[in-house]
């Protein structure tokens, strides 16, 4: 087996040494690198193309002053922030319940909460419209009792984003809460600490990386939300036209430079957030250790 070392490793690596096989295994094989390079290229080529085309004739910079771009960026930042807050507020207790307690119907709830994650956004859009639309199942009641009409409002954008993105946060938070050792909580409980103190002092610091990564995934998913938004919230500049909708409309209308500028902004924003996220989780996990 070790007579013919693979080309990736040196000619005499492992020969005659009992630990040679292991040492060889510790070096990445050619296949691993080859696949990684193919994947990386597949991701980077299209993204770089945006910037190449964008810088070609200043297309990337010029539309930044365009009100369409500014309105879409502002709206996207506001709505995704609200969606994230809503997801965290409702998702954290739900994730805790599902992670720390066993009860009948738990697995059903788990599946149902994950459902929007695998559901096509178009289905989410129609579902929201049929439920909360003017002639939907709940829409007329909302309108009669509270005078609320959701379609074509910023609230509708937030609902569409939260619907599709929240499961990512719940999933990640739940995985975090599941890793907490019962012993920690037992000790804290015998010290007479309250639920909220235990959560704040023990659970939260221990699960911060999981919560943060869930939050980032949720935010990114909300930022990219398109299908459910355009179906449920419509498309109006400054009110419901988020970045993805603005990209879609400018591309359809042949305004490639605006579409490219918007895409460039989204790439930069997403990249920055990922970097911040990695720094945060790294410091969070070092705090834990």
């Amino acid at each position, binding site marked *: 087996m070790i007579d013919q070392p693979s080309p990736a490793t040196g000619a005499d690596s492992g020969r005659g040494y009992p630990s040679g096989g292991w040492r060889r295994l510790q070096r990445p094989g050619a296949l691993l690198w080859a696949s990684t390079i193919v994947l990386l290229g597949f991701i980077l080529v299209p993204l770089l193309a945006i910037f190449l085309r964008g810088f070609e004739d200043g297309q990337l910079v010029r539309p930044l002053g365009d009100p369409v771009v500014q309105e879409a960026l502002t709206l996207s930042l506001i709505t995704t922030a609200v969606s994230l807050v809503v997801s965290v507020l409702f998702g954290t207790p739900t994730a805790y319940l599902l992670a720390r307690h066993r009860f009948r119907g738990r697995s059903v709830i788990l599946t149902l909460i994950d459902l929007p994650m695998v559901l096509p956004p178009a289905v989410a859009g129609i579902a929201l*419209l049929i439920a909360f639309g*003017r002639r939907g199942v709940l829409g007329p009641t909302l309108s009669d009792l509270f005078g609320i009409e959701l379609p074509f409002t910023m609230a509708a954008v937030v609902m569409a984003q939260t619907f599709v993105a929240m499961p990512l946060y719940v999933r990640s938070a739940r995985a975090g809460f599941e890793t907490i050792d019962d012993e920690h909580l037992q000790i804290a409980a015998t010290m007479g600490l309250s639920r909220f103190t235990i959560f704040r002092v023990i659970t939260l610091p221990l699960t911060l990386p999981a919560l943060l990564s869930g939050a980032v995934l949720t935010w990114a998913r909300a930022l990219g939300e398109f299908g459910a938004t355009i179906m449920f919230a419509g498309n*109006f500049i400054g009110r419901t036209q988020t970045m993805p909708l603005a990209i879609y409309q400018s591309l*359809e*209308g042949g305004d490639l430079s605006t579409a490219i500028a918007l895409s460039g902004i989204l790439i930069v924003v997403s990249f920055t957030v990922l970097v911040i996220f990695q720094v945060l989780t790294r410091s969070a996990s070092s705090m834990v250790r």
Partner: protein
Amino acid sequence: MPGISKAFSPILDRIRPGLLLAAFLLVLPALVACGDDDSGDGGTLTVFAAASLTSSFNELGEAFEDANEGVTVEFNFAGSQALATQLAEGASADVFASANLTQMGRVVEADLVDGEPVIFAQNRLAILVPAGNPANVQSILDLGDPDLKLVLAAEDVPVGRYAREVLAIAEQSAEFQNRNPEFTDFNVVSNETNVLQVVTRVRLGEADAGIVYETDVTPDVVGEVTLIPIPPEFNVIADYPIAALSDGDTDLALSFIEFVRSSEGRQILADWGFLPVEPE
């Protein structure tokens, strides 16, 4: 460990990356080839047509297939602005039928048209309200109500541009100003990317009114929407140009255009509510 795998694993180890690469290279052309299948003996005619032509052109396509043995007609219906962009970005088609001259002009400018576009049909605009007319819209003068939810197509969509022309004419009129003394702007709640989406918003009752073409009340939506005509003094005429595309099957394209403009073609268009334009 089984003997065979022991004997072969060093060889396999060595060639596996190569095998994988070979498999990938073999599969790739197959995937690419999926795109172009040429079915039918007489060839396939690909027509890019404005969303408002959906019903009429589907019928025209069937009639054209009946008249030409072995020919298959395939349609791509969308907002004309989307079709023009697709063509400019390299989509391949044989015929382009646009709902206005601007979007046809973009394709002509990109040097993709064979010969000159011709106007084959005209259309007029109308107000569409949901069944029951919840906002009680009686005429275009009522659209100035600040509480009325109006849905239009986006400005670069032909019907969106026509609709804004109509609203601008209405806004200037003394009748409109008398009716809406406090008027500031129309309460547009959404800009859709083609006319069928405007119809859908109205049909679902999400919008109190939409501005569409007179031809948009097809059998599919009869009973769910009501059309309110816009009087001629406020209305505009929508011109529909059609052209053969230079990188397509020009002969087949020209014979389709000829068919659309023939008396049979004009009759089908008229049946769907268009104003067919006779060839000079």
